[in-house]
């Protein structure tokens, strides 16, 4: 367990086009941090800078409080799981798992013992003498994990370790990783573009976009209290509804008929365009009579059943709106519905900057 801190860290491959910009990130010892963001936003680059595989263009990296910018990867006591596993094709599973031990001069008997423990933990005991090419995707992934954990490092880095697996395996591996983290008691930094993984795994989530760290907080806070339009839209499934509006006379207004959004605007936004965010799962379907503070009228265009719930896609005067409704709700395609929200459920963002505006 060790702390990792990035202070004003930037990275550019070519001058003047930074791919990571002024990132500050404080990771507590033993914490499970997930870096999430769309593909190409600089997640891997961040992780590779922490690993030491990429030079830091500016800023400071501290590991356990000590400046680590110039410490070579093998001396950072960090293990890493690569996105496409990077298994050594000519070595057996056992040799792959034991590789770091071999490199560090651990005796053969001790190596075998550790390999067996790890293999047992990851259910690889039956495959120790196979080569990677004879394994399934999930098994390879586990070998990659095994190779990292055999070492007992203070920090583990995982770059989209599950992205090559099918959905079922992904969810079972998620649980295993969470379990591993508790067992290893090590600091973990995990990169993914999948917000579900982020929400389920992380102690804290770092949301990135275009090389900028937008918010770093617990999953709950990120979900309940997104700092920006981007975070709000990226985290949560199905994604948040956004309605474009305008601040007029201290009130959020749309020009569209059949829509009521009685939210007060702060005075400094008078005349500005804003965006109202509404989570699908907070919306309430009503046949018409039950009055709620925020209300839309619309027509049901598509119904998706997700099992326990249904996703209702409706067409309203302000554009499409998606809500999650219980299966019990009696609703059919083409029905005219009214969709209601409480004002507390609404998020307000400044359109120009994407900044969250806290409602009093």
């Amino acid at each position: 367990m060790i702390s990792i801190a990035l202070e004003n860290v930037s990275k550019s491959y070519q001058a003047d086009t930074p791919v990571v910009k002024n990132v500050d990130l404080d990771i507590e010892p033993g914490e499970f941090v997930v870096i999430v963001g769309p593909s190409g936003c600089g997640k891997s680059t961040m992780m590779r800078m922490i690993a030491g595989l990429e030079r830091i263009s500016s800023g400071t990296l501290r590991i356990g409080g000590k400046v680590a910018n110039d410490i070579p990867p093998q001396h950072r006591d960090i293990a890493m799981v690569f996105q496409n596993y990077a298994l050594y094709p000519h070595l057996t599973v056992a040799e792959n798992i034991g590789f770091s031990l071999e490199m560090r001069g651990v005796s053969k008997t001790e190596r075998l013992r550790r390999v067996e423990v790890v293999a047992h933990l990851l259910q690889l005991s039956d495959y120790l003498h196979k080569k990677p090419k004879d394994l399934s995707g999930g098994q390879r992934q586990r070998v990659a994990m095994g190779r990292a954990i055999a070492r007992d490092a203070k920090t583990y880095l995982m770059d989209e370790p599950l992205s090559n697996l099918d959905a079922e395996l992904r969810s079972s591996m998620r649980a295993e990783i969470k379990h591993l983290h508790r067992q290893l008691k090590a600091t973990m930094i995990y990169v993914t573009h999948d917000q579900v993984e982020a929400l389920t795994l992380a102690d804290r989530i770092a949301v990135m976009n275009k090389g900028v760290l937008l918010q770093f907080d617990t999953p709950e806070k990120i979900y309940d209290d997104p700092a920006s339009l981007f975070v709000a839209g990226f985290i949560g499934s199905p994604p948040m509804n956004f309605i474009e509006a305008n601040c007029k006379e201290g009130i959020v207004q749309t020009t569209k008929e059949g829509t009521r959004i009685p939210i007060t605007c702060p005075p400094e936004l008078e005349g500005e365009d804003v965006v109202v965010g509404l989570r699908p799962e907070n919306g309430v379907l009503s046949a018409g009579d039950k009055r709620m503070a925020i209300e839309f009228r619309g027509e049901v265009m598509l119904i998706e059943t997700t099992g326990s719930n249904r996703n209702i896609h409706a067409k309203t005067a302000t554009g499409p709106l998606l809500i999650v409704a219980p299966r019990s709700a009696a609703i059919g395609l083409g029905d005219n519905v009214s969709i209601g929200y409480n004002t507390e459920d609404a998020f307000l963002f400044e359109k120009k900057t994407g900044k969250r505006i806290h409602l009093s």
Partner: protein
Amino acid sequence: MIARLTPYAMVLPIVVFILAFTYWPILVSFDLSFRHWDFMSSEKPFVGLLNYSELVRSVEFWNSVTITLIFTAISVPLRLALAIAIARYLTTESKTVRALRGAFFLPAVTSSVAIAVIWSWIFSTDAGVANALLNNLGIAKVPWLQTPSLALWVIIIVNTWKQLGYDIVIYVAGLQAIPEDLYEAAKMDGGKRWHTFRRVTFPLVMPTTYFLLIVSVIESFQIFTIVDVMTQGGPAMSTDMMVNMLYRTGFTLFDVGKGSALAVLLFVFLVVLTVLKSRILGKRVHYEH
């Protein structure tokens, strides 16, 4: 019918070409190896295995076999070791690296005669650059090409210098096929340079190494021009390779029969090696990534 024959008709010219310029000469040498001939006489009397038996009983033959084997045993590992050591630094794609690769490759496509002449000057005892440099270090003149124990080394150096670029280019291709993340993984795993090379790089370029091994052994057995220009097999036969003996026997001493017998022996040996090559390459050295 015509449609069926068309493909055969299309390969016919090249087949004829290969038959005429590869297989026919081989058959002729085979035949001549059982005869006595000096190029000019109209008779070529059949002498059975006499040429072969004379050959294997001659000191000259075993000398050239030994020299060729020593030459091969030293120069092949030397070439491959140097090539892979250098190739490791030439796998990236930049202007400088490409220029360096080109520079290393240049001798491989330069005429052997030109190379041999230049190196003869360099290693000339009293007027050569090599000795001039040594002289600056206070080392007395070394008669490189006049000392039996040194002349072979000079040949090895010159041949290595010439062939190295080819080996490097092949190794670069082999090394580039190794995914970068394997090196990164090894780095994270604490692999020191040498360990990583031994446990990751070297096993993964094994197919390339096998290929180069066979090719360079075959090449070594065929060395001729550099020796012919620089030492003509001397001094005291210390650099007399099999092909140089073959040339001397057949084309300067006009013992066509014995020369052909030597050619046949060399040919058989190289065929064995080539078969071995396809066997080994077929079997041992394939990895999937």
